[in-house]
């Protein structure tokens, strides 16, 4: 039996700015459990008047890091929760969470590959947990990440992606920019489409496991395209983040 899902109070031990709109909170958890990459935590906030609301945030860190978890939070300007998490929380503050949660959108090295990860905006967060886990396990599983952002400034974990891909012949990270590409950019400058998916997948061979995470409309378009290209629907796992545009 898995243990009951209980709320626990974590302590924020670090806050790191990733992009102008995203921050990563490191939480130390008294009842920490190793997550499966792709799982999320529910975060609960209670206002002074008792109003309580919850949001889900994917674990960004690898489960090999015991005792703590990173949650990367994108600031939604009119959001109820994310402005508090991004603008107010400081190291030493406490946060009520429960997790890890979910068994559907998960990957670990025991599932093998080849691995095709497709992320839009902050949808890259659970995919990063998968890549960090893959790196921590030194698993030579062929992997591609196709990551759609509005602009280079909005790319989360950019330097880490470059570092991960640099020392790893089996990993390739491909960016596409949908609004502003950096000067001199020769890569993709459009929304993800079947031709792009085909190019990125080409070298992966058969039996691809695909994980697609991002704004709902991106996930719909990409998952339909992958199935139309012949990937079995059971190997196209999706996680929709709702309306955030890329």
């Amino acid at each position, binding site marked *: 039996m*898995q243990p009951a899902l209980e709320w626990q109070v974590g302590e924020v031990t670090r806050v790191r700015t990733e992009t102008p709109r995203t921050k990563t909170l490191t939480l130390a958890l008294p009842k920490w459990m190793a997550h499966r990459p792709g799982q999320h935590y529910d975060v609960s906030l209670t206002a002074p008047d008792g109003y309580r609301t919850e949001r889900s945030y994917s674990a960004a860190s690898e489960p090999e890091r015991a005792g703590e978890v990173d949650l990367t939070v994108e600031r939604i300007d009119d959001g109820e929760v994310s402005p508090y998490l991004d603008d107010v929380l400081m190291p030493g503050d406490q946060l009520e969470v429960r997790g890890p*949660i*979910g*068994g*559907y959108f998960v990957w670990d090295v025991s599932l093998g590959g080849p691995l095709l990860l497709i992320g839009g905006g902050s949808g890259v967060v659970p995919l990063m947990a998968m890549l960090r886990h893959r790196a921590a396990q030194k698993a030579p599983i062929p992997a591609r990440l196709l990551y759609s952002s509005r602009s280079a400034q909005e790319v989360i974990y950019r330097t880490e992606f470059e570092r991960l891909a640099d020392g790893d012949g089996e990993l390739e990270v491909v960016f596409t920019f949908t609004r502003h590409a950096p000067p001199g950019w020769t890569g993709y400058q459009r929304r993800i489409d079947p031709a792009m998916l085909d190019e990125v997948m080409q070298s992966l061979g058969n039996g691809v496991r695909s994980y697609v995470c991002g704004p*709902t409309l991106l996930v719909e378009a990409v998952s339909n395209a992958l199935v139309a290209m012949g990937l079995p629907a059971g190997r196209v796992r999706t*996680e929709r983040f709702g*309306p955030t545009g890329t």
Partner: protein
Amino acid sequence: MDDEVADMNMALMVDGNAVAGELQQIFGRDMTTAVARCAGCASDAEMGALLAFTRGPGVVLRCPTCRAAIARIVETTTAIYLDARGAAYVRMGSRP
């Protein structure tokens, strides 16, 4: 429903994975890999892959094939209501 409302509903849609915490609270186990058979069209889907509409007073889970409502969850201050009449059955592994 006019197109604009339909487009907005579509953009706000998430998936069953987003309510994994609520489902686990109700069932005491992870339900995202449990399979729900739609009572309407008889297709099977893992509950994590159901279409989820969470912006209303409760949660509605819909069949990804025919879009029929499979389950509705409403939480009040004292109780949780689960209306799952849109599922012919839910199948979960015997060892969670």
